[in-house]
């Protein structure tokens, strides 16, 4: 199993990092949370970050945390699907499609929230769960899943997710629908 430093993976898949941070910012904007600072990409660890004010509403916390999962996943499918048809489905060599697959998978790889995002969500869920917020109760297993995926990044779980979304899921869906 090839193990690469995280920053090298981030450099190679930099569009995903940018979209990930942009998704956080977009969620903050939609919910009126002041963004104090943002770094969309840098050569370091973390490769990107967003600094925002404290959030007191759990639904807002939830949206800010899972925003990248929604936006990155949707963009991954949108970009990779036509390219998958050409390269994988029809076995036709096409450079433009290879570019689109790289874009799609790169973006899909960074769909999962980071450990910091998960920790923030956990803290907010602890408070909201006392008021029996159903979303807060759902968040607990979600946070565990996020932490698990972040640990499994060592064995390329994020890459497999990106490939699954961009290349495997479209094939499964198309074969079932046709």
């Amino acid at each position, binding site marked *: 199993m090839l193990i690469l430093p995280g920053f090298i993976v981030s450099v190679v898949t930099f*569009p995903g990092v*940018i979209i990930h941070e*942009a998704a956080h*910012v977009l969620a*903050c*904007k939609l*919910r*009126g*949370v*002041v*963004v104090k600072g*943002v770094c*969309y990409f840098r050569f370091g660890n973390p490769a990107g970050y967003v600094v925002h*004010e*404290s*959030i*007191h*509403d759990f*639904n*807002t916390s939830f949206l800010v945390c899972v925003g990248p999962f929604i936006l990155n996943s949707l*963009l991954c499918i*949108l*970009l990779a699907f*036509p*390219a998958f*048809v*050409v390269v994988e*489905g*029809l*076995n*036709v060599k096409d450079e*433009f*499609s290879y570019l*689109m697959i790289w*874009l799609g998978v790169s973006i899909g790889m960074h769909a999962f929230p980071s450990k910091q995002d998960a920790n923030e969500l956990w803290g907010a869920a602890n*408070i909201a769960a*006392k008021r029996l917020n159903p979303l807060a109760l759902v968040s607990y297993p979600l946070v565990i899943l996020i932490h698990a995926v972040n640990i499994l990044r060592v064995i390329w779980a994020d890459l497999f997710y990106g490939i699954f979304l961009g290349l495997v899921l479209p094939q499964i869906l*198309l*074969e079932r629908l*046709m």
Partner: protein
Amino acid sequence: MKQSVCWRCLKLFPVEEMVVTAGRSLCGPCSKADAVARESEPVCCSVCQKQLPPGSKGQSGNASICDSCKATQWERTFPLWVKGMFAVLLTLAVLSYVFNYRFLVGYIESLRANRAWRDGKTEVAASLMESATKYVPESTDIDLKASLYRGVQFLGEGHPVEAVRLFRKYQEHYPEDQGINSLLLKAEANLAFQQKDYDTMLARYQTLFERDPSNPNIAAQVCSAFACKYAVTGEERFKQEANKYLERAKALDPKVFAAFEKLIYYRLTTRKIFPSEEVGPLQMEGKESR
């Protein structure tokens, strides 16, 4: 029971009864009073500290921000290059769907063709796959599958010349594929029968039988080939071989035996061969060769 101190009245209350507002834990009555007080106290923009109209509060209970700072924030947190990147991604996505539209249609046609093939609808599968080749002429896979499906249809309809040509085209790319090799042998055997080349016909069916000795149809075809040889040469050994394979076909599947028995009996007793007797619709299982 856990208790907490109210930030306002400094009294102890159960944690469950406390309300967290702006980072402060307040009891029920104090939280209501605090809300009223906050409605009337001056609110300042959390960025530029400019006073906002009374009662202003940010969305979802967060800090307030004036419209000017909100617009500036939007510009600063979404710089031009980020917006440009989004625009480029969306443009690429649109272009990808527009330029690859024929690939999408061709791929969908090929999936429908494969489904028809699995359902045993050979002619429909062949037509759909040929339609797919029109959309994607550069795809070798699609072109070869179209050849395979059409070849199977021709073989079943008694056109072995076309079937052999199409199967050989497929076999050039997949020489190790046992499925296509068997189909080609069948087509060549049928073609040999049409050309009255019974030696080639027998050789092809014997090769097939060696590969699959438990197949009753193939056993019956070997029997038929020996019967043709007997009809032409009159040699008893061919008649004996024909009877031997007839018994073998019966042992493997009595239904196949029943279908062939009259044909073989007629051929062995009269030593006559009718062209239409040999080629009948072959039972294709509709599975992909590869």
